[in-house]
């Protein structure tokens, strides 16, 4: 595999794992509080809709002119990756509340326990809707990452395999640890994904606009390192300093 393919696999795997953790939290909450049958049906229908989307959009994306595709998709990756990195830096420095799966789980269970709905033939519409929405929205982000990264690298199959591996792995871990998803180092994973999305975004927009990167594909890991350094400096420079037991913002 080329360096570009390694980064592609790592980016898609980590992004999919993060989204899968978020989706799993919602599905487990729906299953525990409203019954597993409707929650699993919601997951199944959402996966079906996502599969149709991939089947419809995948071939269209691959047929677009390569440079246009690279600029559009590179731009989307840049925006999306910068948003992830911004959140990750703010969370790492305490300026934004961390994404706590335990809190999300508790809130979801509480809100669904309070909602009353008619259960027909063992089916609960609230459990179905919550599981469908959670799976569909988080899954849609995985689909976008797989299609955009895969299409620009002309390797949608490899990207899809990396996403599938992440979904299966997180699913299995989720089944084993059930409600202990808060233990997943999500912010670290989000930082890594953000770095790769921004690096791919920079590389592909550059290529699409006529930039000849030194070392070709090897520029991607270099970009990851450069942006990693920037993120590290940002975290260290804006992290509030502890002074005599108190906390002073820098």
């Amino acid at each position, binding site marked *: 595999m080329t360096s570009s393919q390694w980064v592609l696999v790592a980016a898609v795997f980590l992004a999919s794992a993060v989204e899968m953790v978020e989706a799993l939290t919602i599905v487990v909450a729906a299953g525990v509080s409203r019954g597993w049958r409707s929650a699993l049906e919601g997951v199944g229908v959402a996966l079906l809709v996502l599969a149709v989307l991939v089947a419809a959009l995948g071939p269209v994306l691959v047929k677009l002119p390569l440079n246009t595709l690279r600029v559009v998709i590179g731009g989307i990756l840049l925006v999306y990756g*910068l948003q992830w990195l*911004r959140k990750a830096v703010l969370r790492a420095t305490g*300026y934004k509340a961390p994404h706590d799966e335990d809190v999300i789980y508790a809130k979801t269970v509480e809100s669904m326990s309070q909602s009353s709905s008619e259960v027909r033939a063992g089916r609960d519409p609230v459990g179905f809707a919550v599981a469908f929405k959670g799976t569909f929205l988080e899954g849609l982000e995985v689909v976008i990452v797989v299609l955009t990264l895969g299409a620009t690298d002309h390797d949608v199959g490899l990207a899809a395999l990396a996403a599938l591996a992440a979904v299966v792995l997180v699913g299995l871990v989720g089944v084993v640890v059930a409600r202990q998803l808060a233990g997943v180092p999500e912010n670290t994973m989000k930082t890594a994904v953000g770095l790769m999305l921004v690096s791919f975004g*920079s590389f592909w*927009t550059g290529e699409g606009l006529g*930039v000849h990167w030194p070392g070709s594909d090897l520029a991607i890991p270099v*970009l990851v390192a*450069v*942006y990693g350094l920037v993120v590290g400096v940002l975290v260290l420079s*804006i992290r509030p300093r502890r002074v005599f037991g108190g906390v002073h913002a820098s």
Partner: protein
Amino acid sequence: MPPETTTQSVEETTARGWVVRGLRAFGLFWWDFLVGDTPEVTVATLVILGIVVGLVHWMSSTAAWAALPVLVAGTLTASVLRGRRASRRPQPPPPG
């Protein structure tokens, strides 16, 4: 026949309603995905693309690949600092 016309128009309205709702949800998804609460990132990315086009066209590819990561890093820094300022801003008092 009035009853059929009414049923037909209700069906049409429902179908149109589904399409409008679907389009609105699609638009909102992309707006939230690409702009959300960080419009500065979207605007800066478009500006970066414009600068890179200009550099490739009027200067050189080398200038463009050197400038791109610097501009992206600058955008991230500016957006993070904006986020930090926003998190320090005092919350508005509760109504009443």
